[in-house]
């Protein structure tokens, strides 16, 4: 009786373990073989001297440098907006006692998590139209609007990972903190949050990853094909994922297509290094809290 089940699972396991890496390898293989050739200074700065391009003294029109800068500022602004409410709400859900409000909020967060990104973009768009009709007739699609909508998009990720990380801690840890004479806030600050830092940072990472790659939201709220370096939170901006989407459909010759591939490589590398950097940070922070030093 047990044999068919095991056999079935084993087949699924081997199938999955072969198919998924293969598919991924094929996709990245295509990107690398077709894009690697175009990975050069010209891709980033479009013929403008690098230093002047980076400082914005000479605007870059044919390179992806403004898009890189745009994506980074968008990412920074989004996380700035989302971190506080996200983690705060997670803590609230994890630490407050059961009540109607808490159950309702939990459901709201689940709903928010399920809202498609294009709908979030649509929400940003309607909000903009509403703002223009009411209090801010000159409001336009901008970095700030896109960051707000992205922040809403990644908020539930932060909330639920923070909540899960805190709730999965052993109950004893609360008691240990209390028995040591630490107050509620101190126990949270010095024991519970550091103990769950791995999970929470994982959530932040996941959120940052989604914010960096999302295209549908910014497509409707402020990303454009050409804008130069971001000039402020109220201006339109370029972003890597949008640039890729745009280039995939708008390229005019073989070189532009090749640069499209190279751009996807750049975004891929950016996302992966974000991942690597964050897990490094995770380890460092954890070690600092633990006060553990490796002697060797």
């Amino acid at each position, binding site marked *: 009786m047990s044999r068919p089940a095991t056999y079935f699972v084993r087949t699924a396991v081997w199938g999955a373990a072969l198919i998924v890496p293969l598919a991924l390898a094929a996709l990245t293989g295509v990107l690398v073989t077709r894009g690697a050739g175009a990975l050069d200074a010209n891709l980033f700065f479009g013929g403008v001297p690098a230093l002047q391009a980076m400082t914005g003294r*000479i605007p870059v029109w044919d390179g992806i440098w403004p898009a890189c800068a745009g994506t980074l500022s968008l990412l920074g602004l989004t996380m700035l907006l989302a971190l506080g409410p996200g983690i705060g709400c997670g803590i609230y859900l994890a630490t407050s006692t059961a009540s109607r409000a808490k159950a309702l909020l939990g459901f709201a967060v689940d709903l928010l998590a399920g809202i498609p990104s294009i709908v979030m973009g649509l929400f940003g768009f309607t909000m*903009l139209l509403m703002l223009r009709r009411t209090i801010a007739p000159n409001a336009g699609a901008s970095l700030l609007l896109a960051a707000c909508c992205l922040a809403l998009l990644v908020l539930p990720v932060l909330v639920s990972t923070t909540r899960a990380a805190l709730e999965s801690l052993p109950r004893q840890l609360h008691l240990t903190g209390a028995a040591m004479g630490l107050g509620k806030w101190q126990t949270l600050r010095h024991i519970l949050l550091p103990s769950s830092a791995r999970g929470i940072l994982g959530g932040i990472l996941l959120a940052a990853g989604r914010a960096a790659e999302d295209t549908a939201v910014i497509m409707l709220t402020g990303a454009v094909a050409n804008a130069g370096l971001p000039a402020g939170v109220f*201006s339109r901006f370029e972003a890597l994922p949008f640039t890729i989407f745009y280039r995939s*459909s708008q390229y005019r010759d073989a070189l532009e297509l090749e640069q499209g591939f190279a751009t996807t490589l750049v975004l891929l590398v950016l996302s992966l290094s974000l991942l690597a950097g964050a897990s490094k940070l995770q380890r460092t922070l954890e070690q600092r809290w633990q006060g553990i030093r490796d002697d060797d």
Partner: protein
Amino acid sequence: MIVCLTMAMTLSVSLASAAPLDAFKGKQGTVDIAGGTAHIPVMKEAAKRIMTVNPDIRISIAGGGSGVGVQQVGEGLVQIGNTGRALSSDEVAKYGLVSFAFAIDGVAVVINPANGVNALTAAQVKDIYAGKITNWKELGGEDRAISLYTRDEASGTREVFAKKLLAKGDVAPSANVVPSNGAMKTAVAQDPGAIGYVGIGHIDSTVKAPTMDGMTPSQENAANGTYTITRKLYMNTKGEPAGVVKDFIDYVFTPEGAEIIRASGYIPVAK
């Protein structure tokens, strides 16, 4: 793109002494542009030259299609909204828009280069898009199912195509919808059974444009009137333009602007 760059460079060298860009000296301001995808190369090149001379002027360019152009300029979200079609009287009345036609572009049916068919008629195209002709062999080609490609509802190219070639005839619901001229070209270039349509400025070696009712689709023929499936490209503003927006539009109509338009594959139109 290197070709493009060198061209731009030679152009800017040869025109280094030209006056048009002087209009922007010492000025400041923002120009946001959105709309028709066919306009983008022209807008981009013009913006690039202006901002190279004067980085204090910020110009952003977004695509989206003619519909987006009308809507965003009408709502005041951008200063210049591009369309690949004339505005309807409704649109003009609703938003108080002013149009500037600056170029002529032909719209041509394109097929995969491997396709043996070299000539089509408007009637055939109409039947193909209505789903009545479904295989290339009915048109003298090899035995291969026809895959239809059309543009999204916001497209100015689609409007011209539907009006002048399909005579408002139906498009089968099974037709693939692609969101831009470039995406159309990509799809047709890859699919041996494809039929689609793009602005003539977008035609290159990756796709083939069969003759249409005997007319050869090319920019020369569009300019001299022997190819009739054409449209104008417009910049639209809400009310009369002023400040740097006006300077930008004026710049497009200078000889230097005309040069850019030609380099992008269109035929310049005088103001």
